[in-house]
Every structure is written in C-alpha cells, then in structure tokens.
C-alpha cells in the first residue's frame, strides 16, 4: 500500500488550530495567509460583537445564581471563540447581581454569540487543514472545513457534499426527526436558553433546523404542565450532540480522502520524474 507522501507543512497544524482558538484568524496569520485570517477574524468576531450589542452582554445572566462560577460559561458554545468568551466574562460577567429586564433582542443576541463560537471551531479546522495542505485543490474532494461546516448547518449535509448521499439522508432524517419530535413533546419549551442554558447549547449543534425551529416555536409562554417536557428536551439535545459525531465522521472521511489524493499525486509526480530520467 502506498504511504502518503506529506508535503512540507506550512506550519505546525496544532499551533495553527490553537492560535485560531485564542484569536479568530490567528492560525492563518501564523501560516502567512493574511487575507483568510482577516476575513475569519471579521466574520467570527463581528458575529460575537453583534451578539453582545443585541443582548447588552447579558447572555450569562441567563444562568441561575447557583450555577454561576468562574468556569460556568466555559460549557457554553461561546467557548469556541475563547477571546470573545473572555471578553464577555471580563466586561459583562453575570451582571450587577440583581435581576434586570432583558433587552428585546436578547435571544437573537445570544444566538449570535453562540454561533460565533461554533463558527470559530470550523475556522480552527480550516487552519489545521491548511497547515497540513489537506485543502489544496486537486485532491479529489471538497474542502474539508467546508464539508464539516455544512455538516453542522444541515445534519447530513456534509456527507452529501462528499458524495455519500445515502448516509447523509439517514443522518438528516434521524437527527432532524429527533429535533422535531423533541420540540413537539416539549411544546417548544426546549428552545429557550433562559430555561435550559446548557441543554440549549447541546441542541444548537443541530445547526439550521434548530435555529429555524427556535424562530418558529421558541420561547413559548408556558402556563400548563407539559407532560413530556423533559423527555423532549433530552431528545432534542441528544440530536445536537449526535451531530457532533456526524461532523467527526465527515472530518475523518475527508481527511482520509485528502491523504489518499496526496498519495496519488505524489505517485504521479514520482513516475513522471522516473520517466524523464529514463528518456
């Protein structure tokens, strides 16, 4: 079996990924890809800034008092954008310590800060892949980070983008079905970050279907007992968490394909050199 011949790395992939975690775009600056770095920084930090503006930085005030602590926000999706999370924690924290009225667009704001964290994870994947030359054209596959991002936006979408349509369809039906079933059982009460701070974060990994469901049925007024509220909440959260596994599947398959493409490319290169030498 041919051993994949890796090209000389542009930089350490792990360093590139970690730098992106600390500062969106940082990994690309390290790799010398200034334009991608600036674009990544503007997109990720712009979304975080928009979220802070819309929510007046009150997102962490959703947490119950007994749950507040120095590491409590670290379990939120905002963790993906570490600089944003630290900025919000230092500047706004848990508020003045007494209940306040939330601004009108607080839910949209917290959605933006959470999505910023998730987007930065895909920027980390891109920095890692760029450092390893896994995203070069001609490797016979779609961009690895794009496939992963698409797998988050639509469960199963990344698989379809990679040409694995049957698998993608099964993932889409299962995960979106679980989300819809969970939302139906809990009558939309699962789609409310104020009620379920951490479960909400898990659900958000389900991508666009969750965001759409929240816009349609989220934050309902609950004035009666919902019999299967907890079952629905667990189902919807599990759908989001299972989508992480689906994204990892997309990443693993894409990485294998890219390495295979590299191996074929280097074999071709070697055989053309040998042919030249022979002639």
């Amino acid at each position, binding site marked *: 079996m041919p051993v994949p011949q890796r090209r000389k790395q542009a930089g350490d992939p792990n360093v590139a990924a970690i730098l992106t975690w600390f500062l969106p775009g940082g990994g690309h600056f390290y790799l010398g890809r200034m334009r991608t770095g600036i674009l990544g920084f503007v997109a990720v930090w712009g979304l975080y800034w928009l979220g802070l503006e819309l929510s007046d930085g009150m997102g962490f005030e959703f947490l119950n008092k007994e749950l507040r602590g120095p590491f409590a926000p670290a379990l939120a999706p905002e963790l993906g954008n570490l600089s944003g999370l630290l900025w919000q924690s230092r500047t706004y924290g848990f508020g003045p310590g007494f209940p306040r009225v939330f601004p009108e667009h607080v839910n949209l704001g917290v959605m933006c800060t959470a999505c910023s964290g998730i987007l930065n994870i895909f920027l980390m994947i891109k920095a890692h892949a760029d450092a390893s030359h896994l995203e070069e054209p001609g490797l016979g596959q779609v961009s690895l980070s794009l496939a992963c991002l698409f797998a988050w936006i639509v469960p199963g979408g990344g698989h379809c983008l990679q040409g694995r349509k049957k698998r993608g369809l099964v*993932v889409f039906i299962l995960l979106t079905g679980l989300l819809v079933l969970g939302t139906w059982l809990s009558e939309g009460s699962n789609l409310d970050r104020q009620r379920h701070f951490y479960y909400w974060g898990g659900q958000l990994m389900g991508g666009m279907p969750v965001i759409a469901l929240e816009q349609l049925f989220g934050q309902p007024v609950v004035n009666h007992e919902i019999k299967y509220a907890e079952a629905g909440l667990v189902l919807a959260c599990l759908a989001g968490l*299972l989508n992480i*596994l*689906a994204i990892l599947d997309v990443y693993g398959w894409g990485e294998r394909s890219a390495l295979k493409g590299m191996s074929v490319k280097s074999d071709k290169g070697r055989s053309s050199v040998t042919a030249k030498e022979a002639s």
Partner: protein
Amino acid sequence: MNDLVVHLVLLFVISAAIVTIGVFFSHPDDDEAFKRLPRRLGVFLLGCAAVAALMTLIGLTTASLG
C-alpha cells in the same frame, strides 16, 4: 396511550439514532455499517434492559425507601 409504551417507543427511537450514528462513525463503508446495524441495536437495547433491571432491583432492595 399507556405511559410505559410511550417511554419504550421513545427509548427505541433514541437508541436507533445513537446506534446508527455510532455505527456510521466506526465504519466508513456504508454497506458494512448497515450490515452491522441490527446486531448493534439489539446489543444496545439488551444492555439498556439489563441496566434498567439492575436499577429496579437495587431500588427494591438496598436503596428501597420503604
């Protein structure tokens, strides 16, 4: 509908999702993954039944409130 039936149906639905995504993750080849799915699902459900039985037993004996 009977509450127990609803919970069993929900358990089956959630088990199917967990096992399917799990088997996809561990087998990149679709045919291989689909072939292994029924057996894996059976083992998962049997495991869940064993845990439930053990918890019920403990609830009735050592951790009994009565």
